[in-house]
């Protein structure tokens, strides 16, 4: 094998294809250097110039590694690993000196493809993977076929890939799954976006700029009305003047629901967010995966959710929540930092004296928000040290975290135990897939107050200012010129339908391909009729499936090895003979085509012309050395047209 120019171009294409999807998250200078190196390599090949000296490459490599270390402040971790891999592969391209180097580059390309799946495993990514694989295979085949042109090489690569697809499917379904991780992960191993464990002004409105999916929900039975769809996430107790934090619960007691009715069953497919919270409707009663119920009704997974997770849960929509809240907890629900927001405290104290009950106090506060020209806005003005005072008395523009935060502050100042709850609210129904999608822009914050006879009661101050937010989503609640994610805007019915179709497809892909884990595998195979699934059984089934398919491939592949076209001529002739045999004129074993034709012509003079023509064609194709494709096709047509 020689290191010819087409081979080098193929390798350049491989490296380009596998690193292109990384361009989005590589440091800009790495992308620039890699593109420059690839272009330089292509230029050298095109010009036939020699490769750069080894010392120069060493210097460049060393400088690049140093620069990466400076950019990332480390040389360990996933991001750095991927960056190094891509850079080194590109540099390797500049020092191909032997067949070995080509092999190494091919293997590296395959490996770099897999690193892209850390960032995306969507359907387009999968399709792009297939295209990349095809190019890699075509280049790989190049090493063993010498001067073969690109097209036949692509054909060989295509055949290899097409044969691999059904085999891989069998293995994918039956390969025994092990739930990872097998070893400790670097900190940056998982992507994370979503609700965090604290809330400051601006944190939720930032989230609402993203249309990434948070989770999808299927209800078993009727879905509750949208103003009941509060998906409970982190509960925030501790306020330090600017931000709300979860803090530590002062009790370990399980919370208790009394007089709980209206159960709802549903299944959630939660995207990875690298935090332990699982989202459930207010208030949760049962969940299908191992999880803990915190004293504030927060459902926490035992490990961070770093892979797409499915769980079924039951919630009760009407309840009295934890009537027996311990005093230490109630104390926490009243705590405020000293010295902040004096005006708000004064307002709260005034309300307290005016109201004869806790509920009246709450109503007064909501009325206040409703009447005093408060606006719901994604871009609220900045707030000073006394953020609640600034918001209530000066700016009067805010997003849900402003309303929830100030409401709880006011309630605490008025002596009513209360806390902030964050989560998601509402959701969009996909009627094709029959499920609700909750996106990051559905993130929401509300409040809970503790009433002696009713326990924790949900109060959503945002509903007092912008009821449309709760009824029909973010888009309805905001003025038209607000910058919203594209998907949050209502669109033409056609676009909406297309979008729902795509999301339904994505959901299927997520459920069946990406979410295919041990439980899914078990459920799927049980549905197919497999019983007592064990590793051994899976392996045996997998191997026999693969063996069967390989057997079929072998038969097809080896069929063409010794097939002579003459046999095709004879097959057509025998077809004609069978037609005549059915008509009672069988060919004697010793009879040649011409003799047979003569006998037929004598017995059935009306067939004379046809049969003589067929026999003549047969003889010329079989013995005349004129076995062309056209002749064969014409002979076939003549036999088909031959009627008795």
């Amino acid at each position, binding site marked *: 094998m020689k290191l010819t120019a087409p081979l080098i171009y193929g390798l350049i294409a491989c490296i380009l294809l596998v690193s292109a999807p990384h361009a989005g998250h590589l440091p800009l200078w790495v992308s620039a250097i890699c593109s420059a190196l690839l272009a330089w390599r292509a230029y050298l090949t095109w010009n036939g110039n020699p490769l750069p000296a080894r010392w120069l490459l060493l210097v460049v490599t060393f400088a690049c590694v140093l620069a990466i270390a400076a950019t990332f402040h480390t040389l360990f971790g996933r991001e750095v690993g991927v960056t190094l891999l891509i850079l080194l592969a590109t540099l390797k391209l500049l020092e191909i000196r032997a067949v070995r180097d080509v092999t190494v580059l091919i*293997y590296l390309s395959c490996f770099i493809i897999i690193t892209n799946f850390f960032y995306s495993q969507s359907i387009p990514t999968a399709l792009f993977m297939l295209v990349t694989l095809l190019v890699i295979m075509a280049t790989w085949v190049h090493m063993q076929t010498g001067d073969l042109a690109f097209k036949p090489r692509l054909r060989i690569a295509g055949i290899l*890939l097409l*044969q691999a697809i059904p085999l891989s499917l069998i293995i994918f379904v039956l390969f025994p799954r092990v739930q990872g991780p097998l070893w400790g992960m670097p900190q940056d191993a998982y992507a994370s976006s979503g609700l965090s464990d604290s809330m400051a002004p601006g944190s939720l409105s930032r989230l609402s700029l993203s249309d990434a999916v948070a989770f999808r929900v299927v209800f078993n039975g009727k879905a509750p009305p949208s103003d009941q769809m509060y998906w409970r996430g982190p509960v925030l107790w501790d306020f330090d003047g600017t931000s709300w934090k979860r803090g530590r619960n002062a009790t370990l007691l399980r919370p208790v629901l009394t007089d709980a009715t209206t159960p709802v069953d549903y299944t959630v497919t939660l995207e990875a967010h690298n935090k332990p919270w699982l989202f459930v409707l207010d208030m949760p009663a049962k969940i299908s995966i191992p999880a803990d119920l915190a004293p504030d009704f927060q459902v926490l997974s035992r490990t961070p959710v770093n892979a797409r997770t499915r769980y079924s849960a039951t919630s009760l929509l009407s309840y009295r929540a934890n009537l027996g809240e311990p005093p230490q907890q109630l104390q926490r629900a009243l705590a405020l930092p000293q010295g902040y927001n004096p005006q708000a405290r004064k307002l709260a104290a005034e309300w307290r004296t005016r109201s004869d009950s806790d509920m009246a106090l709450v109503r007064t506060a909501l009325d206040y928000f409703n009447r005093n020209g408060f606006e719901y806005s994604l871009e609220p003005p900045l707030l000073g040290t006394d953020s609640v005072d600034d918001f209530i008395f000066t700016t009067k523009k805010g997003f849900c975290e402003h309303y929830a935060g100030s409401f709880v502050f006011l309630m605490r100042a008025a002596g009513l135990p209360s806390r902030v709850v964050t989560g998601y609210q509402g959701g969009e129904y996909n009627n094709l897939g029959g499920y609700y999608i909750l996106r990051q822009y559905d993130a929401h914050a509300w409040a809970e107050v503790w009433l002696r006879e009713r326990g924790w009661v949900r109060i959503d101050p945002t509903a007092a200012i912008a009821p449309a937010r709760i009824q029909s989503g973010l888009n309805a609640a905001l003025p038209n010129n607000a910058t919203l994610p594209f998907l949050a805007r209502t669109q033409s019915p056609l676009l909406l339908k297309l979008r729902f179709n795509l999301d339904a497809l994505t959901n299927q892909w997520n459920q069946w391909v990406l979410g295919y884990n041990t439980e899914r595998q078990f459920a799927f195979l049980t549905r197919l009729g497999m019983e007592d699934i064990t590793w051994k059984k899976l392996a045996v089934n997998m191997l026999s499936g693969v063996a069967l398919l390989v057997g079929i491939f072998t038969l097809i592949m*080896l069929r063409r090895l010794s097939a002579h076209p003459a046999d095709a001529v004879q097959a057509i002739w025998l077809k004609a003979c069978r037609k005549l045999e059915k008509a009672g004129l069988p060919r004697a074993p010793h009879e040649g085509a011409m003799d047979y034709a003569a006998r037929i012509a004598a017995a059935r003079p009306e067939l004379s012309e046809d049969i003589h023509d067929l026999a003549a064609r047969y003889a010329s194709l079989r013995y005349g050395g004129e076995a062309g494709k056209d002749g064969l096709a014409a002979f076939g047509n003549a036999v088909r047209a031959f009627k008795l």
Partner: protein
Amino acid sequence: MLATFRKLFRNWAFRRGVETGTLVLNQRRIYIVPSSQGFGFAFVLVMMLLGDINYNLSLGYILTFLLATTAGMSMLHAFRNMAQLEIHAGYVESVFAGERAKFVFHFNNPGRLDRHHLHLHDDDGHHTVFDLPSQRSTQVELAIPAPRRGWLDSGRLTLYTRYPLGLFYAWTYIHFDVRCLVYPKPSASQPLPSASVQDGVGKVTAAGDEDFSGLRNYAAGDAMPRIAWKALAREQGLQVKQFSAFQGQELWLDWSLLPDIGPEAKLELLTRWVLDADALGLMYGLRLPQGEVPLRHGGTEPSGTGTAPGQLLPQHGAAHRAECLRRLALYGLGET
């Protein structure tokens, strides 16, 4: 040491008789093992699988399985690249010691599949690569050095392929009953001995050399002194002077009349003379120690009667030349 053992093991494990006629490569003749690149790729796949499990990458599983099954199927493709090929050995031209013997093999691909990058090599690393399109035949030459006179066996040859991905090495052994006759290496040019007369038929002296009778085209092996340099200078091409004195006369190339220079050197000298005499179109005979043949006049077919072993009647022509060289090649080797 290790290489020797490996060779011994291979000879034992894959012992097979010498083939005659046409050989068809079937599954019993084709062996397949993973190549070192194949083992390397298996390592890469295991790494990928560990990554998939650790990071729960479903698409990674798919990629890993795609690559693994492609690699697995490439074994079948490697087999198919060689299966059902028909091979037979071709005629091998005799060569002189020190040259390369060109063993010729005819490969026929009866099927409708193109075969790619088939390698043919012997145990000493002489190597040739060829492609074989569908329904074609090709003639493959393998040049093997012939250091010594006598019969040269091609030895057991290996036909292998790494198609399509280089992950598997599929091979078969080919050992045909073809051998190449290697003539002694002609010595440096020496003047021919005087034509001699036997049994009193005619008397010729060396003076006959002077009778220039004409020019003919140069042929390989012609003696340097007989080249017509003047003709060359006149740009008439490389020509050789012919002398009438030799025409119709018999020249005996006699082992026993040679000075004592060792048997191999004698054979080399006799080879040179056979070539020269043949180039000059002389009637020449060869006399080796094993016996003597009565002299016959050129032009008659060798009757064989009365021919003692080791002696060839003075004749000329390609067949005669070949026979003389054959005797010289096999002299003292106990073979015919």
